[in-house]
């Protein structure tokens, strides 16, 4: 049986050069499906990876109880001081608790080659943020000075928006503030932000309370101790989340939407490609009616004929998947964009991530299209009465 399948399949594949045009319909159609699907899913994966990679297990973010995000949260300074003294909070070498109350606001910045304003996060923090968020480091310029209206910009924001070079002025509050430095945070969501001194921002925005407090825990296991202490303190109405949990929750809906869009487009294109594959394989079977009938007359069974047609469709589909996957990888892997995260109303810069898993998904989709597209023509080829098919010559 295997020898029969091999023989018939080899003959089918060797005759492809004489049917290049129709065979290309499958290859190009499936390359398109796989390329677009992988690219869209890579966008979703990149977005989710950016937010999911934000934060550390041994850090916690504290917001007002019931707040979904920093924008809608308020933590008054007295409460921030209480929670900084809570058990489980780590201290620096000077014995000061590693906890920073931060302001979270939005400002308008245009993207490159555009004039429409986009919401970019302005985080009011302190120079100590580099100790708290140890993944953050300055890559250009210097840190803002305490009490001074100066800005350091995330490298992701700098890539996506115009006017964010060192020396440029960016509108924050009460006028434009000069940019003095550029920081990176390993590709996480903070790279889409601009950071300023919190006391300068308090003055400019006429606000006194923080939006959130981020604390460094002694270790990841201290989270429960810290959380219990905060949530059981009758003076505080605050909620505590591990940083990664918080940022992952902020990407969930948006990530699902992008992924859903990817699959929807893939399904629509896939249906088109499926009909293309059906048409091609019907044509392939029709042009080889006599060959197939001859083989069956010589004693080849129906099963090898069916399998050989399916294998041909699979080979063409996989070739399409390889081309589509390679194009998606070449053109989109690492490609940086920014989009509005409607859960935080702010722009998030992220890079497309074409992973091996996505390429495998593309292959599987291609195989399914190839199998379904090849099945009906294969069955038709196998069920055609031999005597009738021989007369097709």
């Amino acid at each position, binding site marked *: 049986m295997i020898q029969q399948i091999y023989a018939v399949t080899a003959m089918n594949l060797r005759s492809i050069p004489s049917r290049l045009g129709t065979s290309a319909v499958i290859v190009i159609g499936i390359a398109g499906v796989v390329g677009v699907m992988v690219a869209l899913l890579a966008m979703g994966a990149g977005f989710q990876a950016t937010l999911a990679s934000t934060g550390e297990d041994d850090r916690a973010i504290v917001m007002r109880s019931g707040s979904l995000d920093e924008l809608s949260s308020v933590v008054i300074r007295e409460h921030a001081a209480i929670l900084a003294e809570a058990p489980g909070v780590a201290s620096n070498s000077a014995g000061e608790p590693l906890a920073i109350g931060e302001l979270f606001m939005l400002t308008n910045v245009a993207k490159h080659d555009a004039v429409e304003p986009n919401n970019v996060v302005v985080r009011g923090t302190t120079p100590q943020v580099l100790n708290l968020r140890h993944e953050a480091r300055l890559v250009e310029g210097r840190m803002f000075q305490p009490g001074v209206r100066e800005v350091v910009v995330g490298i992701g924001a700098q890539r996506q928006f115009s006017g964010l070079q060192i020396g440029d002025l960016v509108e924050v509050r009460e006028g434009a503030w000069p940019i003095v430095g550029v920081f990176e945070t390993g590709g996480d969501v903070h790279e889409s932000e601009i950071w300023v001194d919190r006391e300068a921002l308090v003055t400019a925005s006429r606000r006194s309370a923080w939006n959130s407090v981020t604390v460094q825990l002694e270790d990841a296991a201290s989270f429960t101790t810290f959380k219990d202490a905060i949530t059981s303190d009758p003076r505080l109405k605050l909620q505590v989340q591990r940083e990664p949990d918080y940022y992952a929750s902020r990407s969930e809906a948006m990530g699902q939407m992008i992924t859903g869009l990817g699959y929807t487009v893939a399904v629509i294109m896939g249906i088109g490609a499926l009909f293309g594959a059906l048409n091609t394989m019907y044509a392939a079977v029709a042009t080889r009616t006599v060959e197939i009938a001859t083989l069956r007359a010589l004693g080849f*069974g129906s099963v090898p004929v069916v399998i050989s047609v399916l294998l041909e469709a699979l080979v063409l589909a996989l070739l399409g998947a390889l081309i589509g996957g390679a194009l998606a990888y070449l053109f989109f892997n690492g490609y940086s964009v920014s989009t509005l995260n409607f859960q935080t109303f702010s722009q998030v810069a992220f890079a497309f991530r074409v992973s091996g898993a996505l390429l495998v998904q593309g292959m599987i989709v291609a195989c399914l299209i190839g199998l379904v597209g090849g099945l009906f023509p294969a069955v038709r080829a196998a069920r055609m*009465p031999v005597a009738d098919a021989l007369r097709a010559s």
Partner: protein
Amino acid sequence: MNKERFGEIDVAETLVRLEGVAKSYRRGNQDIAVLDALNLNIERGDFLALMGPSGSGKSTLLNLVGGLDKPTRGSITVGDARLDQMSGGQLARWRAHHVGFVFQFYNLLGVLSAEKNVEVPLLLTKLSKAQRRKHVATALDVVGLADRARHKPSELSGGQAQRVAIARALVGDPDLLVCDEPTGDLDRSTADEILNLLQVLNRDHGKTIVMVTHDPKAAEAARQTLHLDKGKLVEAQGVAA
């Protein structure tokens, strides 16, 4: 009329036996009868030509004898095998081992060389690659085309292509060769060469041959000629080979 052919059985010599064979096709609500209550015995080692006008049923009869189709009624026995009782898969396996086909348009596989075309039926056997190669060389030698083994069908003349097809039919050493208009696509002299080859296979190699033809000269190459008309055998004519 040949007694042995029409019903009276000679068991020892009979290779193909048809008893009460009918074949009809359904077209819409109508049954179209192609063969009707046909009885026929073909002796082992015979070379039988089937003639008749278009639509007389000769190709249908050839397909039934070759196991490509099944009768609507009646029995068909070839050697020990009851073809009318076999499933499609069983018929395919039987064809692979017991019958060789020669078609009017050769039906060679265009992407394969002559030797690979001849090897195709052997892929259904358990022969090793070396054994297959040896059988292929022998078959091509018998048809006089050993020097064209590596050529593709498109590089062969019509007569050479038909010789390759005959080598493919022979290579598995079947009892029966079924030839459907084997000279129908060839000029006279090439057709004569092919008919001579079939006579050699019949006379020297003992192959039983059933051949459908429109060409009276081709029929003259056979030992016996039967005529069909409207699904019935109407005449038999003995021709010495």
